[in-house]
Each structure stands twice: as structure tokens, then as C-alpha cells.
């Protein structure tokens, strides 16, 4: 594809429309490559056992502001002792694992507040506000945290509530769930913004960058320097 429009007198212009098409293609290819990369990496993590679907029981966790109650109807229960109960899960603090999609299926006896999951990306790292995800509640009432593609050393589940003393009845806690392959390619709003906005930005940057280079190099691309001199 010729990226220049040839003009009479040996002058040339950048073919901006073609460049825009190329920008769109470029962003699209980058996007698909990125999605494929994450998908393939997850498959290799499954083979290595790093990404593994596991159903956890309360004994797998360490707690903060949480008291375990006796099971009822075969379901484990716990009660929060303040408004910020924390359930922490780690293998041994040193072994990384891929949490995939974390599902927290539990029933509070009072309305719950923000549902947040913190994670650490280095061994021995503390939990921080800059590394957390918010839950999306599913139609069955369970909460799901999407950590697809992340490799973590510990996760901390924070089922907040306005007050202390909320009794949670746990149906199941699952980590390492994998999305169907097609979901890796479905953009959310953030990625839609990238898909729709980035081509224009790439196009603008290339156009301006090209013009910049062109001037710096004495109009080598748009107008041969010799022709310029000769025309005067």
C-alpha cells in the first residue's frame, strides 16, 4: 500500500486516509494479540497447575475481625466483629498462584456494603488500595471478582457492611475459575474506549510525528530537497 499521494512536480503528500485505516488495523491487531496472549498464558498456567479451580472452606483462610460460627444446615457461617471483616487466603506466602475468577457465594443476614478483593503481586507485600478489584454481583446473588491474567501471592476478601455483627452463611468460595475462551476477546467499557479512541490517537501521533521528522530531514518525504531548490 503506497502511503503517499504523488503530486505533479515530484511533490508527495502523506496519504492520511490510508494511514487511518492502517491505524485502525494496527489497534485491532494489538488488541487481538493481547487477548490471545492472556488466553494462551492462562492455558499454560493451567498445565503448570498455577491456575487451578479450587473450592475453599473457611479453614483455608486467616481472618481479621471475623469469628467462625457453628455450621447450620451443613453450611459454614461466620460473623463480622466490626464493619471491615477480612478473609485472607495464601498458599504459603511465597508461592504465586493465578486466582482467575474468584466467586464468593454467601448470604449476609443484613445488607452488605462494598465487596472488594485485595491482592498482592510480590511475596511479602502488604495489601494496598492500588491493588484491589470490586465485585460484580451475579443473578444468583453470588459475587464475582475478575482477576483473570493476574499472578498473586495472597488475596484478601473484604465483605464490608455498615455495622458489625453481620452473620454470613457461606454457600461456596471458589478461586481459579476460568472464563470461556470467547470472553477473553469481549471488550468491556475500558477496552471499548481503547478500541474506539486509540486508532484516532495513533493516527494523530503518526501524522504529527511524521510531519516532525519530515521537517527535520529537510522535507525528504513530502518534497525532495533538490526539487525544492530547483523550483526557485
Amino acid at each position: 500500500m503506497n502511503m503517499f499521494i504523488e503530486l505533479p512536480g515530484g511533490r508527495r503528500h502523506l496519504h492520511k486516509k490510508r494511514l487511518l485505516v492502517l491505524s485502525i488495523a494496527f489497534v485491532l491487531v494489538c488488541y487481538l494479540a493481547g487477548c490471545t496472549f492472556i488466553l494462551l498464558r492462562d492455558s499454560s498456567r493451567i498445565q503448570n497447575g498455577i491456575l487451578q479451580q479450587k473450592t475453599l472452606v473457611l479453614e483455608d483462610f486467616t481472618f481479621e475481625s471475623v469469628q467462625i460460627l457453628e455450621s447450620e444446615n451443613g453450611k459454614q457461617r461466620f460473623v463480622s466483629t466490626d464493619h471491615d471483616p477480612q478473609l485472607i487466603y495464601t498458599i504459603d506466602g511465597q508461592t504465586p498462584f493465578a486466582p482467575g475468577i474468584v466467586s464468593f457465594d454467601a448470604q449476609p443476614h443484613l445488607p452488605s456494603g462494598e465487596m472488594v478483593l485485595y491482592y498482592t503481586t510480590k511475596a511479602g507485600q502488604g495489601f494496598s488500595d492500588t491493588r484491589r478489584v470490586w465485585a460484580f454481583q451475579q443473578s444468583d446473588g453470588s459475587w464475582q471478582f475478575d482477576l483473570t491474567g493476574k499472578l498473586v501471592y495472597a488475596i484478601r476478601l473484604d465483605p464490608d457492611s455498615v455495622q458489625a455483627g453481620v452473620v454470613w452463611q457461606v454457600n461456596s468460595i471458589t478461586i481459579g475459575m476460568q472464563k470461556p475462551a470467547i470472553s477473553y476477546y469481549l471488550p468491556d467499557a475500558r477496552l471499548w474506549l481503547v478500541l474506539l479512541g486509540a486508532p484516532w490517537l495513533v493516527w494523530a501521533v503518526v501524522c504529527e510525528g511524521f510531519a516532525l521528522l519530515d521537517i527535520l530531514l529537510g522535507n525528504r518525504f513530502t518534497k525532495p530537497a533538490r526539487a525544492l531548490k530547483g523550483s526557485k
Partner: protein
Amino acid sequence: MDVCIGLASLVGLSLFLARQTGHSPSIMPLVSVALGMMWFTLFACFNLLVPAGILWYVLCALAFAWVLIKEKKAILGYLSPGLLLFLGASLFMLAALAVTKPLLTQWDEFTFWGTAAKATVSTNQLYTIAQSNLIARTYPPGLIVFNYAMQFFGTSFVEYKLMVSLCIVYFAAFAAAAAMLDKKRPAAILILTCMVLLPLFFESGTAQGDVSRAYLTCYSDPALAAVFGGGLALYFGSNKKDAWLGWLLAVVLAALTNIKDIGLALAALVVLVAFVDLIVCERERVAFYKLRGMHAIIAMATLWFAAIIGAYVLWTLHLRYGMPQAVNRFDIGASGQTLSQADMLIAGVLAVFGINRTEQFKQVTADMVYALVDKNRAVSLLGSGIVMLIVIAGLLLLCWLLAPTKKLRRRVVAFAISSFVGFVAYYVFLIFTYSFIFQPVEASVLKDYDRYIMPYWQGWLMGALVLLGGCVAANHTKKRHVWRPVACRAGALAVTAAFLLTVGWRGNWQANVLHVSTTLFSDRLYINNLVQQAEAEGMQPQDVVYILSQNDNGTHFYMLGFVMQASRVLVYSGTAISATGETVAIGNVAARLVNPEAIVGGNDVKCTPEILAAYLREQGVTGFLIDFMDDDFYQDYREMFSDTLAGWQPDGSNTGGLRYYQVVWQGDTCTFVPAQGGAGA
């Protein structure tokens, strides 16, 4: 769908205006939005919102059709980068929010912005007149009526559409920034990229990792900031300084005044900047009908001031004569209400000259000066005010270096000086409000400092970016000074990259407008459920409801007021803020109503069922809604309920008990019975 029609009307009007005035299509969305605000405000003041809507859409449709017929295919030439951004970004936001349907969560959205918008849309009357539980009714209506215009074809008020309406206002203002670059699309894209990042860049109240409310908030400050900066962009971006510019900017300034009280000051500062620029750079070119030179400049400035004063007077008169209870706008202060606005200005100016300086004034002045360098008072992602000053000064210096003509260099210098004077004036004005209007408790912590100062910072930065765009637009490739076009392009690229990196790395992306989790609204969902339950249990729209919401700091009271709307939320028992700023638990229902002074003093007020009953009778309460109760209430007031609070536990927790009761009188005995026709009867 309704918002799409609203957008179409704005685009149609923009194309029409661009064709008729010969000015850049990029500035027209802002003018259209401002026209809409003023149009609906004018009609709303006379309680004619529905005719206003019908006329607006008919006229816009005619304008759209006319310009399409006249221009045919040539209409594509009007699709400037600014106009396309306005349309594209608005549609994107509409689609994104329609999927996630975020809810309002912040305090003032319930005390005013959301509640007023809901009252206006659902009654087709302005919130000043409409029957609703809204308490504060005197704030200017620009954004509220604009939202009404956007939801005109909707069947009922929708929260996320209010957010989209505000986004439309921002994007309209941002589009104006690219007016000078209509022919240089790549550069326009770079400047517009910076623009749409501004709300994220100036989100200062949040720490890194917090939930971002940029583009989601319904507070008026971001709109104020955008329209202020948009006004500057419109002035600089207009290719001709003619009478049309006078009128277009006049509309925008009127709208700016009509967004919030402080908009008056910002609009006046736009006039200052424009006036100085006209004198310094445009004296030969400016024309106002037959007037030229200084005469034309003075005529334009007069027109602009007239527009500002006109918008202000319109609302003042409406408050005085259009509302059921007349309000004198000059008597309204902020929360403290210690001085009226006019008295505040006089006292403030005197204090500047050393006369009658109060302790509060001295303290506030010292605090405000320190706030500029205080690391804990970030005004943007980059930090405190001094950093912003350096950034803006650096940008303007860059513009000065890159400007290819003497005139443009003069313009940059004139803008630097006039906008700095404007900043000082705005800052002093804020000092006045903190010194003479705010309560000492609030003034001592400079409450909401970053939110109040943000509009000026953002508008100022927008002005500087517009001038940078102007430098790019004015630079042609010449053999001489080859470094300048190179540097211009490099400058624009570098500034955009800096913006992207700052907002990308430092901004909050974990939970923001593009990634909204429903669990952020758990409090709201709880309230929505509570109201649904109460309605199922027989709460009627005309009921006067008493809310039992012990330990509430007012959040649930205002949220319920917003959600319930039709019924009058009357009173509640929560906590109170004492004069010393502490939160005092009331502990007993109605205590704050019986003896508010006692609460402020920290004394325990004992309320009894008799006092409560007397109060309910006095207020004409017909319904009793239980949001949250404690064990004391259960013990002392249980006998007032005909079912003795069946389903409620002695500790105040609910295990299937009713939420809503009807207030029934037998002589002087007050009983709460399950409502007739409800689930509990």
C-alpha cells in the same frame, strides 16, 4: 432514546449556527448547550417547561432540516474534529452508562442536584415550584433544566441520564478547545485527548486507588469548570472577532452564571480575559456592527456583562416573585449564613485594606496561602496549587516560545497576566466566602477547598492548552525558523503524552466511570429496597412520613427523600453535629426536635412516647417508616405499635418485621398500625 433526540437537537442547532455565523462548528455545541440552558430556564421561571420543550425541539428540528436542505452533501464539511468529539464522546458515554446504570451516591446529589433534577423531570415543573421534599431550592437551575431538556421525551426520571446530560455539557465545552484546529485534524485530536482527560486529572479529593467519580458525579463543579474553560476556548477559537462572537459568548456567559452562584465570578473573569485580549491583540480587527476599535470592544464587553447580569437578575426575580415562599437572593449565604453576599463583598474589601479584620479572616487568609503549597491539599493528580501554577506557567512559556507571530506572543503574555489577575481575584473571593459566610468550624478546615478552587484551575489549564493549539494552528512550514514547526509538533505531542501518562498511571482506573461495580451502590440499593418494601406495605404517595433512622448522620434521610420523592419525607432521628464539630448521638427519637439546643450542648434529652406522639400530630405525620432502630427504642416505644413490633428483635434487628406503619389516632392515643391494603394488613 430521549437523550439521543436531545443530542440530535444540539447537533442540528450547532450546524445551523455554524452555517449562519460563519464561525467554527467546534464552538457551536457549547453555544447550543448554553442556549438550551437559558431557553429552558427562561420558560421554567414562568412555569412553562412543557411548552419550552415542544418549542425547543420543533425549532431545532426546523434548523436541522433547513441546514441539511441548504447544504446537502456539503454538510460533511461542517463535521469538525470538535463537533465529532462532542457527538462521539456523548454517545459513547450514553452507551457505557446505559449498560452499567450507575446510581447517585454523594451527599449533595441527594440534598440538591439529584433530587431537584428528579422533581423537575417527574413533575414537569421547576424544582422551585414543584411539590417535593426538596429543602434547598434556591440554587440556579442551568444544569437541572438542561437535564430536563435531555430527558424531555423520557417517561420517567432516570439517574444515569442525569450523569450523561452533564457529560454532554463537558464535551460541548471541550469541543470548543479544538476550534482553531478544524483544518489540522491530527493536532486537534491531541488537544481533545487532553481535554477529555481533564475531569480525571482534576479529581483531587480521592487518593490513589480510590473509586473515581469523574464523569459520574452530579455536582455542578465539573460543569462549571468545563463551561468556564469552554468560554475562554470559544473566545480564542473564534476566527473572527465580530458581532456574532459577542452574541455567542454572551449566551455562554449567561449559562455559566446560571449553573451555580460562583459562576457569576467565573463569567466576569472570562470577560476580563477577553477584554484584555481584544485591546492588546485585536484592536484593528474587532468589529461590532458599525463600531470599530475601542468602541466595538467596549460595546462587546457591555453586552457580555449585560448577559451575566441578565441571567443573575432573572433567577433573583424568580426567587423573589416566582416561588410560593419568596426568597431574597441577597440574603442567602452558604451553610453558615452569617453574612449576605453583598455585605460579604463589602466586609471583604474593607478587610483587605486592613479595616475590621476579623480573626476568622486572618486565619483563613493564612490557611489559604499555605494551602497553595500544602502537599495535603492536592488540586490535581500532580499535587497542590503551586504545582499547577508551575505547569500552567510552563505551558504558557512554551506557547510564547512557539508562537510564530508577534501578535500571538502578545496574546500569550496578555492571557498570562489577565488570567493570573483573575486567579488572584477568584482566590480572594474564596477567602471572603470562607471568612464571612462559612461557619468557623468549616472555615477552619477550609471545607471543600479543592472542589471550590478546581473550576478555576481547570478553566485556566484549558485556556493554556487552547493557546498551545493556537500556536500549532498558526505555524506553517517555512524555510526560515524551521525549528518552530518542529518544536510545535513536538510540544503538542509531549504535552499529550504527559497528560496520558499522568492520568494513566496516577489516575484511578480500578473503579471509575468505565468500570462501575454495583457493590459501590450497596447503600443506595438498600434504600431502594426499603422504599419498595414500604410501598408494598401500603405507603402512599401523599403520606407524610416519619423516618426512624437512629444513628444516621443524615445520609439515609436525604437518600430516602430522593428515592421517595412523591411523599413528603418529614423528620428523622439521627445524629447531630454539635457546634464543636463532634457527632452527637441523639439516642432518643425526636430529641433534636424537642430541644435542639440540648443536643448541641451534649446533654441527654429524654424523649417519651407522649412527646413523640405530640410531635407527630403537630406535623401531621401519617406514616412511620423504620430504617434502623436501637434496643432503647424497642423497649420504650414498642407499646405504640399495634403488633408490638412483631418480627423485630429486642436489639433492634429485623427478622421479618414490618417496615411501614400507619399513624392512627384514637382521641389522644397514637397507635402505629400496619397500613391498610398493604402486605402487613
